[in-house]
């Protein structure tokens, strides 16, 4: 899909969520779903298989998100998957998150961690990233076991890598 089309979908989803008045919550739910979508081959295959009817793919989305996310989030994901754009869902969501953050003069700070962060840790981490980058950040935490330990924070083009995975890779490279 072209960038223009992805931008178009992201703008449409953003406007719908903003109109519904729960943009922050929807944005967060969409971000988490997008990361789950990226890390799960089975989910990705199920939502992008053209042989599966669109109604059935939408039913899968509703089964996954029903009761766990807002109806707005569920309907938006269902709409994207039903229109055959499931493959571009992460890119669309990333654009939407960036647009939402930009509307609040925030920079998206994606943090990957091996274990979940507490609210206190997220608050202190956000403050630390603001201090380090000089930008107000919209913190998005992704639990990624491949990190092994520590954290990787990405703010715009800046990557702050304190992961055990990277240190092990560096050690292996030296070996």
């Amino acid at each position, binding site marked *: 899909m072209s960038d223009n089309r992805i931008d178009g979908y992201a703008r449409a989803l953003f406007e719908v969520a903003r109109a519904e008045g729960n943009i922050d919550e929807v944005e967060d739910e969409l971000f988490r779903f997008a990361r789950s979508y990226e890390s799960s081959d089975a989910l990705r295959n199920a939502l992008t298989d053209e042989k599966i009817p669109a109604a059935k793919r939408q039913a899968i989305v509703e089964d996954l998100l029903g009761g766990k996310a807002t109806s707005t989030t569920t309907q938006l994901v269902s709409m994207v998957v039903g229109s055959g754009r499931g493959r571009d869902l992460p890119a669309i969501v990333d654009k939407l998150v960036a647009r939402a953050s930009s509307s609040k003069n925030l920079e998206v700070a994606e943090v990957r*961690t*091996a*274990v979940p*962060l507490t609210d206190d*840790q997220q608050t*202190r*981490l956000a*403050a*630390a*990233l603001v*201090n*380090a980058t*000089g930008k107000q950040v919209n913190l998005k935490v992704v639990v990624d076991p491949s990190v*092994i*330990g*520590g*954290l990787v*924070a990405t703010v715009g083009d800046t990557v*702050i890598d*304190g992961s*055990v995975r990277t240190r*092990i890779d560096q*050690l*292996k490279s030296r*070996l």
Partner: protein
Amino acid sequence: MSVLGIIAVAGRVAGETVTTDPQGHVITNSAYVPSLTEIVWGGGAAVVVIALLVWKAGPPAKKFLAARTAKIQKELDAAAADKSAAEAEATNIRQAKGDIAAERALIIAEAQAQADALLIDGRARLVTEVADLEARAASDLVAAQGRVGDELRGEISRLSSAAVDQVVNGTLDDATHQELIEHFIAHVGAQS
């Protein structure tokens, strides 16, 4: 009939009286010297006979002798020619023999030269091949050393990586995770 008989016959023809014995032999006056008449008539007859012989038999005899001489000369010439031919043939044979010897010497010299050239070339090629083999062996040795070193380093790296993974996974408990997170937050917060 003897000559004396002929003379006697001639004397009778000429009217000379010839005395004979009862056996018919002519009796001369002397046992050794005939009578003058006999000498004259005998001599004349002899001259006539000789003249006749010279006149009639001389030319054929000369012709015969000349022919015989010519024949002998011809045979001598032929013999001389045969001798010359034989000598020429002998010369040719000797020359051919000399040519064969020279040819043999030339062939032997060429063969020797070729053998020498082959020997020199073979030695040079052998030296080059030995040098190539030595260089290749040295190169193979270096490559083998490098390969073994690479394999060893790869194996060490693989084992080390596996060891690191095992050690890290074995030591990363929840407390360590929290410590890493707190360290990261403190480290990022210290940056400005």
